[in-house]
């Protein structure tokens, strides 16, 4: 990043905007992510087939770039003859829904804990740190599998399980950010003016820790999507016939020898989505707080 020589005259939003349009990773990541969001949002309109309708005579058609591929099914059909492109596009909805909802839930928990620890310090900080330590010692995949195994894998359960497990990074980052902010002049001023604690936290502290919060939320969304895919792949996540990408990979596993595109396509989609979100998150951090890059 080139040094800005006229720091004094550039406002923060203008500076951030300039950094944004120069940041290749952020643009590419944001672009791909935006495209996937649009595809997911309009999947029912875009897809030529119902993702659940089986067509056994036309099962396991290869994608168009292979010899036997046909344009009627650009990405081929799966073991039950369902159009793979339609399933892939509908699968994006599951990934994004779970990713966003779980990131919101865990964001709420982690931010509440982190801000409380950072703002109040002392005993509150000790308790929160202990809770975070306990959470970090729990093997996430194992716990999530056990819970889904016990109570079933509906979308709501998946969101709740993932959301209740992945709040640790929010808590750690928000605690640090709040610690930096809590003794700044405007917080002291608000306190001197007699503002209530709730008011100070909500209108003085929170807006000023928003940047790191957004960055963590982005990266944790990717984390949640990966966890959902892994759980569904292991058979203890989203259940058939829903077209979760992890589940599609699991179902294609039996055809790994001759129809390896069955696992290749949803895997590549998952990889692209996670990469896009991570690039976006890293980019947002570079733009808003380049000194945190590590």
């Amino acid at each position: 990043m080139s040094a800005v020589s006229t720091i004094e005259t550039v406002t923060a939003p203008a500076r951030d905007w300039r950094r944004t349009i120069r940041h290749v990773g952020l643009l590419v990541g944001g672009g791909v992510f935006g495209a996937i969001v649009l595809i997911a949002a309009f999947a029912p309109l875009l897809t030529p087939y119902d993702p659940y309708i089986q067509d056994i005579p036309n099962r396991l058609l290869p994608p168009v770039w292979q010899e036997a591929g046909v344009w009627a099914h650009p990405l081929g059909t799966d073991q039950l003859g369902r159009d793979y492109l339609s399933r892939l596009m509908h699968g994006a909805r599951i990934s994004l829904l779970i990713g966003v909802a779980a990131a919101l839930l865990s964001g709420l928990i982690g931010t509440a804990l982190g801000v409380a620890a950072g703002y109040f310090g002392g005993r509150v900080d000790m308790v929160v740190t202990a809770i975070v330590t306990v959470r970090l010692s729990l093997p996430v995949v194992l716990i999530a599998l056990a819970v889904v195994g016990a109570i079933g894998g509906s979308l709501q359960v998946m969101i709740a399980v993932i959301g209740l497990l992945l709040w640790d990074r929010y808590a750690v980052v928000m605690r640090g950010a709040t610690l930096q902010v809590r003794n700044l002049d405007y917080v002291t001023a608000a306190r001197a003016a007699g503002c209530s604690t709730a008011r100070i936290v909500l209108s003085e502290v929170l807006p000023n820790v928003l940047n790191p919060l957004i960055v963590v939320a982005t990266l944790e969304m990717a984390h949640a999507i990966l966890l959902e895919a892994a759980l569904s792949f292991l058979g203890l996540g989203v259940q058939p016939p829903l077209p979760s990408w992890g589940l599609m990979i699991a179902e294609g596993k039996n055809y790994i020898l001759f129809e390896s595109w069955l696992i290749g396509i949803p895997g590549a989609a998952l990889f692209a989505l996670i990469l896009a979100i991570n690039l976006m998150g890293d980019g947002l951090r570079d733009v808003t707080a380049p000194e945190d890059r590590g």
Partner: protein
Amino acid sequence: MLAFGLRRLGVALFVAFAVSVISFGLLYMSGDLAIALAGDTPDYAQVDLIRKQYGLDRPLIVQYGDWLHGALGGDFGQSVYFKTPVKTMIAERLPVTMTLGLTSMLFALVLGLPLGVLAAIRPNSWIDRIALTFSVLGQALPSFWFALVLIVFLSLTWPLLPPSGTDSWENFVMPTIVLGYNATPAIMRLTRTGMLEVLGADYIRTARAKGLRPAKVLFKHALRNAVIPVVSLAAVQFGFMLGGSVVVETIFALHGTGFMAWEAIKNNDFPTVQAVIMVFALFYIVLTFLADILNAWLDPRIRIA
């Protein structure tokens, strides 16, 4: 140092206790365990019998106390599905998971440390860019999918390695790559950051100014200090690897604790699941405890804070 160690030990014990409550309580989420254990078409007499047999008719706190008492002595009860003592199974399977964990950690360190150092010596050079690209791609790669891709290429297209089993060292190669690459980006990035910071320090300039060989400055003066935070990270990552072993061992049918846990979960085998969660958590707690003590010993500033 002693005060720090004792305080840290207190935290570790508290965390272990909390984890034991959670891993015990977790399995009661499914509602009535006796019904779950009785199979698809249970009748009342059967459920009652199972409830008595497993002591599920006692108050929860008594059941927990009983379980904890056994667990402290290494006795996690009888496996419902495998029909053997959980203790025996864990003793059998844990070496496989530990071997996998160690080889994976070695893989991550062998790849991550040199890349991080090289990237820090020449920031923004091509090697730095390659290291960065590698870490960005690595963090986005879903490990279960990566495992299948490896199987397609290394077992099916070119039959170099066995796709599943636990019989020889060859069975560990692909699982090691999959589990190890996952931890590599974090180790690489932290090494790079640490090196960059240390290389700018005064004592490095002094070492250079007094004419020491660059290699000596780099390895004896810089790397030693830069690597301190990596020790903590490696401990944390090892704990994560144990958790990740569930996915990797299941895909490669590697008969370790992770694979066993997956089978146990699929078959409502709650004593086994509780035990594996507890054992994995304990490893994490002990490792992070040791890493903190080591760090405090290496860096006196930590002890006082």
